[in-house]
């Protein structure tokens, strides 16, 4: 019996994960191109960039023709020391309902700090920063994720981020940290293969090791994105084409499991949409190849 058959017939009868297919990050700059492009099964929107009362027309048209839309939050800071802000959670829940989303996603990151007893004013990072992989941080993250799950009307998946800095004194590998998070909260995972590649270049962490430790049963979907290397540091820019090493990590993942969805992220320096379509074709080819490889191994 092949790997695909096992998944279909289900030793996991309770698999409620949504089959998403191949999608792209919806951004206003490429809205027309996305609409004109056949074969885009679903899109992701940055949750903070849409207002539930005034959803962009192109997004509504996509929704009407059955394209699934997943809100992707960037400001909850679930890995931060504070409990998630109930107002931010309510806003995310509202967007999930307005978009009839099958799930919502956020990041394993902290985005602000200071205030309270820290002796510093409150500060916003303006971007995602890595959580130390310690027992303390994991306990806090689990509780924050559980609070978010309770506030949201649909399942939550959380994403591994790209890190430029290393915390000293870490107690767990990324794979172990995520595995325990999933075990304790039942949260789903959004695995960004570009971020695994980033952590390979910047922190010397082998993606194969991370993939081997991850609970891939909990995989909701995969992010793929481009970046660039400068002075031995990988910058996850989302403004460059997806390079081969990132597709290689995707292939490694696909050899282990068939992802329910894959999404191409592009946030800057937008090329003609035909180029993005070609990148999506490249991703589909890896998905097809990965399935075949898994079949060959297990079949």
């Amino acid at each position: 019996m092949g790997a695909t058959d096992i998944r279909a017939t289900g030793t996991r009868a309770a698999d409620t994960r949504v089959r998403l297919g191949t999608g792209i990050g919806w951004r206003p700059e490429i809205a027309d191109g996305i609409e004109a492009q056949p074969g885009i099964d679903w899109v992701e929107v940055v949750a903070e960039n849409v207002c539930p009362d005034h959803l962009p027309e192109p997004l509504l048209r996509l929704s009407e023709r059955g394209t699934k839309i997943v809100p992707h939050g960037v400001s909850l800071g679930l890995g931060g020391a504070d409990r998630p802000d109930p107002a931010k959670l309510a806003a995310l829940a509202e967007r999930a309902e307005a978009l009839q989303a099958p799930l919502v996603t956020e990041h394993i990151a902290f985005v602000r700090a200071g205030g309270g007893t820290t002796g510093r004013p409150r500060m916003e990072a303006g971007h995602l920063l890595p959580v130390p992989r310690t027992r303390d941080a994991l306990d806090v993250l689990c509780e924050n994720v559980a609070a978010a799950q309770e506030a949201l009307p649909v399942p939550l998946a959380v994403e591994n981020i790209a890190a430029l800095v290393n915390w000293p004194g870490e107690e767990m590998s990324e794979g172990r940290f995520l595995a325990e998070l999933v075990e304790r909260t039942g949260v789903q995972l959004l695995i960004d293969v570009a971020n695994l590649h980033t952590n390979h270049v910047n922190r010397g962490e082998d993606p194969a090791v991370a993939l081997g430790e991850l609970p891939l049963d909990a995989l909701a979907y995969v992010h793929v994105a481009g970046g660039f290397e400068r002075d031995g540091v990988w910058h996850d820019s989302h403004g460059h084409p997806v390079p081969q090493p990132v597709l290689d990590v995707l292939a490694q993942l696909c050899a282990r499991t068939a992802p329910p969805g894959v999404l191409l992220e592009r946030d800057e320096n937008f090329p003609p949409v035909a180029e993005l379509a070609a990148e999506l074709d490249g991703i589909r080819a890896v998905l097809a190849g990965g399935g075949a490889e898994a079949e060959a191994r297990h079949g």
Partner: protein
Amino acid sequence: MAETHPGDGTSAARERLARAQTALLAALVADGPVPDGFDAERLAVQRRALIGKRADVVAKVAPELPEILGEKTFRTEFAAYARGRPMEGGYRRDALDFARRLTEEGRAVDRATRLKVRRWWLERSGATPPPEGRVRRALYRLRAARQAG
């Protein structure tokens, strides 16, 4: 579910985590010291990356600023402004603060450019909306020019 109980079990962990994350973030956005055990060079790379991301968003909410300044000058002047100055109150506020700062001490920009930035700032800062009518608007701009000079 494991041994976490909302409200009690994690309060000590939250405090320790808050201290650690605050020290790191202060080093990245508020010119704080490099916390023990961190690689100073990597922190510098991350600091610049955060400022770069911040400049990206400011350029999106205020596209006139890179237009007036030119992309390269916008980037260098923004980096000089943002270094050690954490963002307060969102990206629009950030764009306004940057513009105001530039009109006051933007050394690398000439007077005409500084004047354009000042006009941009005056029209958006809400303090003095541009008046109705061509003559009044011309006088207002003249006044802005004197203040910027």
